[in-house]
Each structure stands twice: as structure tokens, then as C-alpha cells.
């Protein structure tokens, strides 16, 4: 008898493509949230596969905190050009300038919370009814609870205690005016799956993911890259270390790890040996035990 086994990586690839196509079909105006991180890079790669040989039938939306690594923006612009995609930028800086949000004060201020409002504004402005995100359930315990098609009320809020049942592979994207959906095609992927897949598919990544020497400061236990947004404070020593990033986010809060992993195989070995989750270095998750759930309820990615 012929062997019809499908490897797990091909199964989750097919599942993600299925979800991307469902999103294109069920919604009028979907948009793909693009952060420049590896998950959104996998997402664009999958979107390309899902609709090939046609172009991706929805725009990319980048919520820009204004605190970007230069490498992220360069990568983003090159990718958008190659895809022939339409890029929309929702700017936190602009939201601050226009007084729609107020910058946090204090030493540990971050623009994380401000991203939520900027995102909701951008969705409303573009009248987007579905936002595709690269969130994975293995990232965090509140995410572990989320559906592929995650319903948001007219305030953009998630109601974790009252999610729609999601049966088999039948996704219910029906909604009332003003509501929208967040859709997570990578729900069932792990960090290891993402790396293995990027390697298998030969996808290029921003250089920040690979080990390089950089000036850093250690702040609240996290290694932060020195940049125009992060400068040593009193008592903090400027150091040079060999580092890389496991996730890509706002430059003021995304911690790096010390590493010699300078290619895909080395990163995969490092991920396999890691004893901490990739978000373990993110100051935004450390604020309280249910920090992620609270932010998600309000409309975070």
C-alpha cells in the first residue's frame, strides 16, 4: 500500500495555508500584520504560497512604535518590494503627536500599550475586518487558549471566557458591523517549527537574528542593544557582547541573548537547548502574571 503519511511540518504548513485562504474568502478587507519578526516573515512566505501564482490578495500592516531597529525596516521594505504588496504603516509616533495616545512616563516606560490603540485606529481607518497575526499558542499561556478565528467586539476586545467553539476545520467568521476578527494561521506552530521551516524553505531573515557583536546595556536583567532609543543610564555600563535576538519588537524592550549562533543550524541547536521561553526576555510580559491576557483583552496582537 502506498504511504500517505504527511510529516508534521507539512501538516502545519497546509493548515496555515488553509486558514490564510479562509481569511481571504470569508472577509471583505483582511490585512496581514507585519512586524518584521520571524513569525510574520513565515506568514508572508505562507501567504505567498497560498495564492501563488497570484499576488497576496491583502495588504500588509506594520504598527510602527518608532523604536525600530534599522535592520527591521530595511528588511521590511525590501520584502514588500519583492512581493509587490501594499504596505500600510500605523505610526505610534503620529498617534502621540496627534494626541490620540499619551506616552508612558518613568524609567520603564514602553510604547507597548500605545501599540494597541494605534492598531485599533489603523484597523478602523482602513475598515479592515480581519487582521492576520503571527501569534503562536506556544508563546504564552493566554495565547494557548486562543482560537484560529478570534472574535473581537466593537471595542476590539477579546472575551476569553466566552469564545466561539471552533469545530473541525470549519471557521465561523460571521460578525456584526464594527466587529472584527484576529486570525492566527500559526496557532499550532512552535518556535522550533518556525526555525526548521524557515531553514527548509530557505527564507532570508534580518541579520539581527544571527549572532553579531554589539554595544549593549543590561537593564532589569535584560540585554538591550544600544541605539538612538536606548542609551546607558547612570550606573549602567556600556559593554560589547556577542548577541542575537530571538524575537523582534520595540527596540527599547526587546532583550537579546548572548549567542554564537551565526547560521540557521546553530540557531536550531540553540533553540533545542534553550531553557527559557523566547518571551522570557520581554519586559512587557514580566509586568504581571496575566499581563498578556490583559493586553489581549484590550486588543493587543
Amino acid at each position, binding site marked *: 500500500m502506498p504511504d*500517505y*503519511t*504527511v*510529516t*508534521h*511540518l*507539512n*501538516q*502545519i*504548513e*497546509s*493548515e496555515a*495555508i*488553509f486558514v490564510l*485562504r*479562509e481569511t*481571504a*474568502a470569508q472577509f471583505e478587507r483582511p490585512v496581514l500584520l507585519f512586524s518584521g519578526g520571524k513569525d510574520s516573515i513565515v506568514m508572508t512566505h505562507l501567504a505567498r*504560497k*497560498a*495564492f*501563488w*501564482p*497570484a*499576488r497576496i490578495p491583502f495588504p500588509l500592516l506594520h504598527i510602527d512604535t518608532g523604536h525600530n531597529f534599522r535592520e527591521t525596516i530595511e528588511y521590511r521594505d525590501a520584502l514588500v518590494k519583492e512581493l509587490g504588496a501594499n504596505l500600510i504603516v500605523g505610526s505610534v509616533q503620529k498617534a502621540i503627536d496627534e494626541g490620540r495616545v499619551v506616552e508612558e512616563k518613568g524609567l520603564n516606560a514602553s510604547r507597548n500599550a500605545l501599540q494597541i490603540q494605534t492598531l485599533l485606529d489603523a484597523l478602523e481607518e482602513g475598515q479592515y475586518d480581519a487582521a492576520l497575526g503571527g501569534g503562536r*499558542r*506556544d508563546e504564552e*499561556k*493566554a495565547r*494557548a*487558549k486562543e*482560537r484560529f478565528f478570534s472574535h473581537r467586539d466593537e471595542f476590539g476586545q477579546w472575551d*476569553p*471566557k466566552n*469564545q*466561539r*467553539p*471552533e*469545530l*473541525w*476545520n*470549519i471557521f*465561523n467568521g*460571521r*460578525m*456584526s458591523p464594527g466587529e472584527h476578527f484576529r486570525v492566527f494561521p500559526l*496557532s*499550532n506552530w*512552535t518556535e522550533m517549527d518556525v526555525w*526548521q521551516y524557515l531553514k527548509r524553505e530557505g527564507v532570508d531573515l534580518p541579520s539581527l537574528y544571527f549572532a553579531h557583536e554589539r554595544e549593549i546595556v543590561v537593564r532589569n536583567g535584560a540585554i538591550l542593544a544600544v541605539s538612538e532609543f536606548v542609551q546607558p543610564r547612570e550606573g549602567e555600563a556600556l559593554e560589547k557582547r556577542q548577541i542575537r535576538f530571538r524575537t523582534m519588537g520595540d527596540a527599547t524592550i526587546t532583550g537579546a541573548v548572548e549567542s554564537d549562533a551565526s547560521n540557521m*543550524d546553530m540557531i*536550531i*541547536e540553540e533553540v533545542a537547548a*534553550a*531553557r*527559557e*521561553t523566547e518571551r*522570557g526576555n520581554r519586559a512587557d510580559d514580566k509586568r504581571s*502574571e496575566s499581563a498578556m*491576557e490583559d493586553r489581549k483583552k484590550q486588543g493587543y496582537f
Partner: protein
Amino acid sequence: MSEESSGAVGGYLDMDLLRFTTAGSVDDGKSTLIGRLLYDSKAIFEDQLEAIEKTSEQRGDENVNLALLTDGLRAEREQGITIDVAYRYFATPRRKFIIADTPGHIQYTRNMVTGASTANLAIVLVDARKGVIEQTSRHSFIANLLRIQHVVIAVNKMDLVDWGEDRFNEINEEFRKFASRLGNIVDVTFIPISALKGDNVVEKSENMPWYQGPSLLYHLETVYIGSDGNHVSARFPVQWVIRPHSDQYHDFRGYAGRIAGGVFKPGDDVIVQPSGFEAKVKAIHTMDGELEEAFAPLSIAMTLDREIDISRGDMIVKGNNPSEVGQDIEAMICWFSDKPLNGRGKFALRHTTKETKAIVKEVKYKVDINTLHKIEDDRELRLNDIGRISLRTASPLSYDSYKTNRNSGSFILVDLFTNETVGAAMIV
């Protein structure tokens, strides 16, 4: 890179996938078991462990509360119960696992059904002190209805019954008696465990030398699931039509979708349902190149040898083995809404990639979960009830019985006003 680790990477690409779900009554230890499985198989990161150690200590728990690894919502932690499914992942060199840890509380049955609907295997937990109780029966019945073909009965909290072999055997008997009236389960395995202490979860227990079988993890790693899929009746629900409008692919018209059963090859004679038009498969496309054959559950795009009007919701099937086409459907349904279904009702129906309206014409009977008897004198389906209905759809469906195909044999009903998913149905 060393040879050893390059071997491991090759292995990773070859691994297969087992999706399993937990089931059983409140507090039988489902979440604790999953926590234990993750912990003992070293799938827990240090920061996750530190976080739950801290919380357990704050709450004054005697042991580290492993259920906190999956009970991720604030309300769940406050109440010490699971409310919604948590999905967790781990891999051993043999397999990757997707776990759905589901709630035991009857109020959240719909979330249990959500977790179970995509599973190949269910672990039904039974508290060794309590034995088979109503929720055990309900969940076993649902697992059976969803045609989860592999079931593990994990008799838990063996530490509280002195690791007794007699008690274990008693519960096996109880369950077998109940299960003999369920039809579909292919394979049942009984394992005595203590999720709290770790006995027979990853390592074999020293407290129960009388038990000769495998540990739970060993069973999960080795259970054979290769023959579960349907590779006979070829089904391809069209999800999206790809029209590139580019010079290079000017005339390309690809039907995109995920194969829902069987095998397709270029040259195959196919029928497009419900229209009944016939054609041949011209090619099977992916961005990585054309395929010689494609089978479930792969996502592909298909071109046909002639121009036919095909759109989302149509189903391409092989000519030698077509599906049923019709508007009058009989199904078993799990009801998820506070608003009862009595007599007639109009809904949106979603079946594969098709949406149409449907009128429920009759509730034929309900099922008594404990006795598995039909209830015919009360035909109102209330929250968490299971029963048989007949309905008529506004446009024809191309369908199979759930027994022959999980994809083309299932549908959901959606409330036209609230847009809530109110029922999960399996075509008889």
C-alpha cells in the same frame, strides 16, 4: 555541525504528528496530567516553571500545581478549574504532539468538543476513588460520536487508593460495560497513573509493579495512527479561485483548497458538485512545483482541462466514487446555545467551504448520556444536549456520512442574529 545533531534535524523533518485531547470530569486531574507530561518530558522552560512555583507558593499549595501550566486564564487560576481548551505542544524524537487540554465542567462542554474535534486520540481520565461517573460517560460518548478512534482510559489518583490493582480492574470493568454500547472506538487502552506524583506518566511506576503495560508517554509515542485517514473517496472542497491576471499566467485558473479525502492525480476524471459537470485534472500546483499526486490533508491548487463555472463552496470529487448531493440531511448534533432548539429553526449552515441557510425540521430524539437510550418524549435540545435532527438546506450540499469522512460529513449551525456557533453536527 556534528553528525549526531544533523541526524536529529533530519529526524525533525520526518516526524509525524499526533493530536490528542483530554477528557473526563471536573478535578479528575486532566490539567495536572498534561503539566506532568510536559514537565517530565522536559518540555517546560525554566521561566515557566519559576512562574508556577511562585504562584503555587503564594496560594499555599502543598506541591507545585502543575495544572497552572495549562490553566492560563486569570479566571481559571482563581477558580482552580479549566474553562477553555488550552493547546500545548511537545515533541520526542519519535513524534510531535499537539495537546488539547479541555475542561471537565459540564457548562463548558462546547469547549471540550472544540478540543476533541481535531484529535486522533483521547485520554479519558477517571478518578480512581469515584470511578465512571456521568461526565466520564458524556465525554466518552462525545469522543465516540466524533469518531476519535483511539482512547486511553487513564485511571488517575492511584496514590489515593493505595495503588490498588483491584480498584483498577473494577474501573476497567465498569468502563468496558459502558463502552460496549458505543460503536466506533477502535482501540482502548487502560493505564493506572498518578498525575500528581508522576507514576506511569513518563516513567513506569514503582508503586504498581502489578501493572505490566506501557507508560502513557510510551503509548502515545507508539500508537499507530497511519490507517485512520480516508484515502479512498477523493474530495476537494474549493476554497478560493486563483486568477493571477498577470502576463505570465494570463489564462491560469486554479482551484485552491485543502484535500479532504482520497488521492488526486493529473488525468483523473472528476465531477464538480453540485453542478455535476465533468472534467479531467490537468495539473496539481504548489509554489514549489507541480505534484504527481496529492492527498489529505495537503493544501494545493488544481487546474482542470476545460473551463467550467466553479466557485467557493463547490466540491470536486472523483468520478468513480462521488459523494451524496442533496438538501435533506439527517445528523447527530451537540447543542451549544443557551437558547434551546425546539421544533423548527432557521440557521446559517457551514459545511466544508460552503455556507447556506438551513431549516431544522425536526428533533427526532435526544440521547440520555448515562444509559445511551433515546429520549423521545422530550424533544427540546438544550445547552449541551446531544440529539438527532433532520434539516433542509437552501441549496444542495455535496456531503458524505461522518463515518466515512470527518471533513465532508460535518457541519456547524450559526445563529443568524448573534452569529454564534450554536451546534456541531455529524451527518448520519
